[in-house]
């Protein structure tokens, strides 16, 4: 097992009477991308801000590289790279100046190469207020990783980014992971979490309601697998026959779609039916639920409780 570079045990955070985080625990290891997922107000940003030393927790233990952020936040400055959800830079600061400014405080040489990689090469002389939202986010990301920290904390990094920037960011994250850097990623984007993370924790009302790898999460729960079948004569469209494991049938255009809790017998029975009725199979798709579908299921169950 790799070293845990970031650990949270029974972490709690309140704002007045409102409990934002009600006692959560997880660890992030070096070379791992860990996703923190949850709807708005779930406690993601509070968790990240306490890890960054911006806010103080009400209880529990937080350690980043064995440093308690609430006590020794200054020691952490060169060891973590942070892209905040709500932050800004001085309006008149140019892109080049921002890189020089923060690198000087981290005692490293400016990483102008990162500006080129983030598509800001032609904007190096532009002032912060002249950049688009996406460009401002890309600059924040470049600044977060410029000093090559062993732990990177990203809060909604791809919000407002176009497809090309998002792809570039994902490549950059993968490179950081390959360099054994731990990344804690808070995101609303389930496709991003499914694609990029090794493990995720789903936060709801300040509690972790599910945790594991995206594959583990999508394999659990109600476990509906979507079986879509298209045949030449569309006999299944008219057929009311029940098939093993199927709980629901939907007709969508030329496909009959079956939601099954046990897809292997369902597929076998469907193929047997098509063959026995002299219909001809054109297309068959078996799809596991996406992380997004699983997330919605988990958060809906959590919201009802």
């Amino acid at each position, binding site marked *: 097992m790799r070293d845990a570079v970031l650990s949270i045990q029974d972490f709690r955070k309140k704002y007045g009477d409102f409990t934002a985080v009600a006692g959560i625990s997880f660890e992030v290891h070096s070379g791992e991308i860990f996703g923190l997922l949850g709807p708005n107000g779930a406690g993601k940003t509070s968790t990240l801000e306490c890890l960054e030393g*911006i806010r103080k927790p009400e209880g529990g233990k937080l350690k980043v590289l064995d440093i308690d952020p609430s006590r020794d936040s200054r020691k952490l400055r*060169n060891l973590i790279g942070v892209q905040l959800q709500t932050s800004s830079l001085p309006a008149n600061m140019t892109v080049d100046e921002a890189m020089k400014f923060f690198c000087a405080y981290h005692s490293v040489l400016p990483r102008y190469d990162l500006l080129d990689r983030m598509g800001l090469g032609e904007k190096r002389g532009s002032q912060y207020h002249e950049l688009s939202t996406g460009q401002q986010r890309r600059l924040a990301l470049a600044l977060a990783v410029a000093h090559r920290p062993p732990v990177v904390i990203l809060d909604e990094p791809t919000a407002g980014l176009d497809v090309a920037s998002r792809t570039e960011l994902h490549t950059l994250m993968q490179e950081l992971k390959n360099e054994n850097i731990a990344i804690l990623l808070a995101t609303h984007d389930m496709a991003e979490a499914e694609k990029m993370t090794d493990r995720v924790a789903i936060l709801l009302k300040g509690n972790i309601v599910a945790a594991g790898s995206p594959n583990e999460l999508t394999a659990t729960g109600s476990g509906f697998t979507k079986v879509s079948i298209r045949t030449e004569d569309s006999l299944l469209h008219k057929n009311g026959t029940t098939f093993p494991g199927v709980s629901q049938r939907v007709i969508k255009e030329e496909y009959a779609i079956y939601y099954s809790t046990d897809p292997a017998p369902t597929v076998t029975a469907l193929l047997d039916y098509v063959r026995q009725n002299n219909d001809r199979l054109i297309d068959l798709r078996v799809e596991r639920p996406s992380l997004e579908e699983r997330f919605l299921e988990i958060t809906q169950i959590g919201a009802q409780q």
Partner: protein
Amino acid sequence: MSAFTNHFSFEFKTGLRNPTLMLMNYLFPLGFYAMMGLVMVQINPGFKDTLIPSIVIVSIMVSTLLGLPGPLVESREAGIYRSFKINGVPVFSILIIPCLSTIFHALIVSVIIAVTAAPLFDGAVPVSWLNFALITLLSAFTFGGLGMLIGVVSTSSRSTVLWSQLIFLPSMLIGGVMMPLSFLPESVLPIAGLLPSTYAMQAYQGLAYQVDTIYNPVVSVLVLAALGIFSVFLATYLFSWDSQNSTRRGHPLLALLVLVPLIVGILLI
């Protein structure tokens, strides 16, 4: 380039790039100087005797009291200090560097005024240029500290204007800047003693121009120095990184402790 010099260089350039700061640092003080030199000297020829220190004090007050606090509040509101905090920019740099840069701009204007007032408007020059320079530096430090403190304790840009004007306008009227203290009724003098400009002008008069003063000029220098030190200490102590995070080391009303040197000054004089 070190982090400090890099930061200072950026703040100095901001003072020229930002139209509001450009106005506060240069256009307003120099425009006011030209107007006073052309008009006020004609109306009141005696004003020539105090033209240089008066306009220097006004320039310093405009840059530090009117120009410095707003950007401090706006930076906090916009989350700029959050970015600074996570990247290890210390509180001292966040406060002191913009203050130093503002003082630097104010000193440039002060030099322009000091060098040109005599040939352009027949303004009286100081007997002791060294004392003049030292008092100018001390005044810039003191007003810079006050500007910082206003920026730190104000909850919004609007409230910075109120706090700044609370010092700026009375200073112009009864702080010895536009009219000598000797012209004021005796009942107003204790109120004038609550204004830092009064001590700055008395220090200039007594030590740089070496004329008789109502207040002891050495005590005036000590009051100005104490006021500056109190302001910087309180601003650093009460500094808040984040408008969304109410954690603060002390209540903003503690800033009123800055009145202590002024009250002591009134009692001593």
